[in-house]
């Protein structure tokens, strides 16, 4: 394994550097511009993201296909996998910034540092997507967490927001502390923080009897607490409904998509590199563990979503459930067949693409309705089909896509996942997943029902700007088309871990 030294690495590290630079620039600009023009700050942040995106593409092309570089003496790795996640996360941040510009609940005067924080959290997520060392993993996770806590509590005068931040940080701190303890155990077992080395050494020490399977199990479970908290898997999910409900809506959207995606990136890389040896997996039956966690996550997420009245909270539970679906793909990491492992990773990646569009789209509608109707409750959606037909139509598409109704992207996402899972012979898990998607119809349809089948007392039409519709289109069109085009399938198939 060849490592790039620090200075050599910097060139490949330019996207992250650009993010940091622009985060600083945003803070400086915020000092300069008047409050009324705070949108300028947001656009600067967007420019920063754009620059970073260009940098990602340049570094990626410098890398060449199917190549990877280990930067900073193996602290992080730049490969197709990381590039994909970086782009996805970057786009999610961009969307969040766009939402935030339109969101009326965020305090305009504080927006400068808000955008800086968003850039910072993106930076942390970039690290999460590419970290290959225990130290780096922990730093990345903490960077993301600390900034997220602040973002979740950003509405300083909202008790809900503060409460969300408080719960988030308490929960997050304990979870990451637990994870760190698990990481320390792993470190103690093999004596190195490098994931690849861990992957090679762990079976050796396990075979030699220096380490027992129970020890590995304890370590992994502790680590799972940290990663599971990030992707909100049962039983580490309980923070998410409260935080999602309390946080500003754009941040909720961001957490439910970007944070989750980053979590999965970390999860996949960690387990693939660190535990990608089937002996280790089998010694603790990791496959079954993950499968059960996956099944529980989607079931509990879906069931708890059923009685919700707050759309944000409902979507929070729904995103827990989707985390469960994604975990089904992760279960395949434990399959002995490399082809199936790659199918699992590909399925997760494809699903994340789909999820990105449909979930962000749904949250965008929630932002819009919260602006116009001033509520996040389902009642506020009554009669939306006549008050804002296009928005209602878009929301219906997002929701049905989340359900997995065919020809919408969500269906194809599930299709890819379930095909992979069944190919891994986990029929029961696929069945649980499918039953869950039936259950999920019920609560998604409740919103559709409110929009289309019920009428509002107030029948005044909402008016939205052209920009709003343009942004909505950006989410609707992919939700309609992704599944119908082969390009995304082949893309997700190409992205693999080594």
């Amino acid at each position, binding site marked *: 394994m060849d490592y790039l030294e620090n200075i050599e690495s910097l060139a490949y590290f330019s996207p992250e550097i650009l993010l940091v630079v622009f985060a600083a620039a945003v803070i400086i600009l915020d000092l300069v511009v008047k409050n009324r023009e705070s949108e300028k700050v947001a656009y600067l942040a967007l420019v920063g993201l754009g620059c970073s995106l260009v940098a990602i593409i340049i570094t990626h092309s410098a890398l060449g296909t199917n190549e990877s570089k280990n930067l900073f003496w193996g602290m992080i790795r730049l490969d197709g996998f990381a590039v994909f996640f970086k782009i996805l996360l970057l786009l999610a941040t961009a969307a969040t910034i766009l939402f935030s510009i339109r969101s009326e609940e965020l305090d305009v005067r504080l927006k400068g540092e808000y955008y800086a924080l968003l850039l910072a959290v993106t930076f942390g997520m970039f690290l999460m997507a590419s970290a290959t060392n225990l130290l780096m993993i922990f730093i990345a996770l903490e960077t993301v967490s600390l900034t997220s806590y602040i973002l979740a509590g950003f509405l300083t005068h909202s008790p809900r927001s503060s409460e969300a931040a*408080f*719960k988030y940080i*308490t*929960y997050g701190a*304990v*979870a990451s502390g*637990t994870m760190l303890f698990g990481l320390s155990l792993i470190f103690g077992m093999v004596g190195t923080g490098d994931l690849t080395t861990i992957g090679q050494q762990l079976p050796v020490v396990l075979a030699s009897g220096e380490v027992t399977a*129970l020890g590995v*199990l*304890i370590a992994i*479970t*502790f680590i*799972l*607490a940290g990663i599971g*908290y990030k992707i909100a898997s*049962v*039983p*580490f999910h*309980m*923070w998410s*409904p*409260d935080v999602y409900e309390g946080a500003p809506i754009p941040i909720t959207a961001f957490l439910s998509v970007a944070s989750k995606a980053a979590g999965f990136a970390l999860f996949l890389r960690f387990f693939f590199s660190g535990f990608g040896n089937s002996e280790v997996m089998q010694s*603790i*039956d990791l496959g*079954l*563990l993950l499968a059960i966690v996956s099944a529980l996550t989607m079931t*509990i997420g879906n*069931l*708890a*979503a*059923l*009685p919700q009245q707050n759309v944000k909270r409902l979507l929070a539970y729904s995103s827990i459930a989707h985390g469960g679906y994604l975990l089904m793909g992760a279960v395949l990491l434990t399959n002995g067949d490399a082809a199936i492992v790659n199918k699992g990773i590909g399925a997760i990646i494809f699903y994340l693409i789909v999820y990105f569009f449909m979930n962000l789209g749904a949250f965008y509608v929630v932002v819009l309705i919260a602006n116009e109707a001033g509520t996040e409750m389902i009642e506020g959606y009554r009669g939306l089909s006549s008050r804002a037909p296009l928005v209602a139509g878009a929301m219906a598409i997002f929701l049905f896509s989340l359900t997995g109704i065919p020809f919408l992207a969500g269906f194809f996402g599930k299709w890819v996942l379930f095909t992979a899972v069944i190919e891994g012979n986990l029929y029961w898990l696929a069945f649980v997943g499918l039953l869950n998607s039936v*259950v999920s119809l*019920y609560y998604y349809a409740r919103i559709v029902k409110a929009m289309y089948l019920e009428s509002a007392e107030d029948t005044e039409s909402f008016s939205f700007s052209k920009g709003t519709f343009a942004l909505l289109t950006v989410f609707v069109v992919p939700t309609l088309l992704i599944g119908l085009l082969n390009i995304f399938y082949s893309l997700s198939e190409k992205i693999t871990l080594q």
Partner: protein
Amino acid sequence: MVIPLISIILLCPLAAFVIFALLGLAKRSFPRQDLLSTAAMLAALVCSFLLLREVVPDPKPHTVNWISVGDFTFSMGFYLDSVTVIMLIVVTLVSSLVHIFSIGYMHGDPRYPRFFAYLSLFSFSMLFLVVSDNLLGIYIGWELVGLCSYLLIGFWFEKDSAANACKKAFLTTRVGDVGMFIGMMMLFAKFKTLSLYDGTENGIFTLVEGLSGTGDIIWLSIAGILIFCGAIGKSAQVPLHTWLPDAMEGPTPVSALIHAATMVAAGVYLTARMFPILTDTSSLVIAYIGGITALVAATIAIVRFDIKRVLAYSTVSQLGYMMLAIGAGSYVAGLFHLTTHAFFKALLFLGSGSVIHAFHAMHAHHDEDHTDGEAHEHDDHSLVHEHGSEIPPDQDMRNMGGLRRKMPWTFGTMLVATLSISGVPFLFSGFWSKDAILGGVLGHAMVSHSPHYYILFGMALIAAGITAFYMFRLIFMTFFGEPRNQEMHDMAHESPWVMVVPLLVLAVLSIPIVNPIWFNKDYVKPPPQSHIHAPAHAQLGPDTKTGDANSGFAFFWISEAQAAEEEGGKNTEKADDAYRIHKLAHNIAMVLSICVAGLGILLSWLFYHRRRFSAESVATKFSPVYNLFWNKYYFDEFYDGVLVALTVWKSRLFAQFDGAIVDGTVNGVGTVTRQIFAAFIGFFDNRVVDGIVNRVAEVTWAAGGRIRRIQTGAIQTYLFVVLGGIVLIILIFRAL
């Protein structure tokens, strides 16, 4: 020539109906639908007569492929033998006369054109049934005539009684039809065809001969009986006879055409057609059903006062005779009686129609009353039929009397028919055909030494006597004596010529001499019988000979010499024995039948003309018997009772069901007031099937609520779950 002629016969009436229907869609109507329909029928009549010459001894069906899938071919086609032609003539003739009669009878009805359109449709269906060469075609015609019967019985559908009657008729016959369909399924499963005759492929009759063995073949017996079920329904045999008297709610020409002459006789025709597949057992069942029907219906008829119902029960009874004949192997006698009965019974109905028409003003008046009265009960419809409705005054014989002078033509023609049905010897066709049946049954009994057939003969004989009794009762009450209802009597008048002429024609047709076809014994021959047939027959030698013997004896008095000559010329000794036995039987039967008929007429004369005995006192003296007759053997009550009992059972069932499953939610019971199974199943649907689904949904929902409760909002609970989760995972997976 056969195909064009048959096509004309079928298409003419059909066209008359189609024109009506198409114009109806365009909200118009043909100005003279009556003439159109009548003309169409007359054309068919002419063609039917022309077909007489086309009959060949061993006809082939004219078929086309109707449906062909792979190896299977269903063909549709015509089969024309002497029986077909005779049926065609009977149907077209009676139908034409009824058409003409209706021009007068239905005059002024608001739905006058529609009536003729329906008649045309009926005629088409009936003719289609008659000419079909296969069971499927027969079944199609069979159901279509049922439909027309439904439409025509319910022609005055504003009357609830009519509405009920038509539904009852259709449903009751459908029960029989299902039996017939099952029989068809059995035959089809065995023979892979429903064609009866040999066309491109062998038909059922040929195939059935291939079945080995001389005794009964159980499944074939069952199939035969099942097919006969169709006839039980259509020909109103016990126990499915109850619809026919109710069907008198229809206009009287309809009763004459459909419920006396043609459609109800279709059952007999079908049974006769299926003769070659009837085994001993099925024959016996048919004979018994026929015999019982003949007797039961006759006894009920004694005590009716509604002129049409008397005739209706009389029809049921006579149809029973025909069935008995076929069951006893007297194929030709059965068909013969069918023909003669068609004419004289149509005549009787038309005559009664003429009488009713005489009270036409009253009729209209009554209708209005009726309408008003029924409006209140309107919501009260149920599947349980209302029956035994009041007798309309213009049909009540107790309002009649002495009409003989007022309506001489009607009286005269009806008397001819009455003499005919009563079996008054020699001059009247009914005597010959009935005697043929009696003789056939007795002969069969004597040949086969079967006690069953002796019993049946006894029943038939008693029924013959009763028939003479109640028919003369009808004549005496209607036409003789003093008018009982002077007001109505004054209004009565002879019918116009369009109604009288058909009566006259039919009266002429009730004289045997105009039925010459039947006296040429070569013209109608029973179909060749196969090995499956009665051992009794088999002992007699070559089967075909027995058949000949039967047909020859059926017309003993006319064709004896001829028959004897032929039989004697070529038959074996055994056949000669059978021949002699049958000859003897016919002689005995004839004597006996003349005696019972005479007795019946005499008693009737004493009771109702001379009033030597009081019918009322006899009725009180034998009140149990009288009640039995009066209440029509409680058949309707039985059917209703079964339904009611089931309803009770249903409520009880629900009560338990409710207690057990829906713990005490009794509100279901209140809503469940519908019919037995239907309601039960509807209930099942809502409570169990939906219930399970809803329960699953509830459980799911409740689980959601449960999970919500864990989400307490207190952060330390969440952390506890985290730690608990970690510990649990480690504990569980440690062992693995």
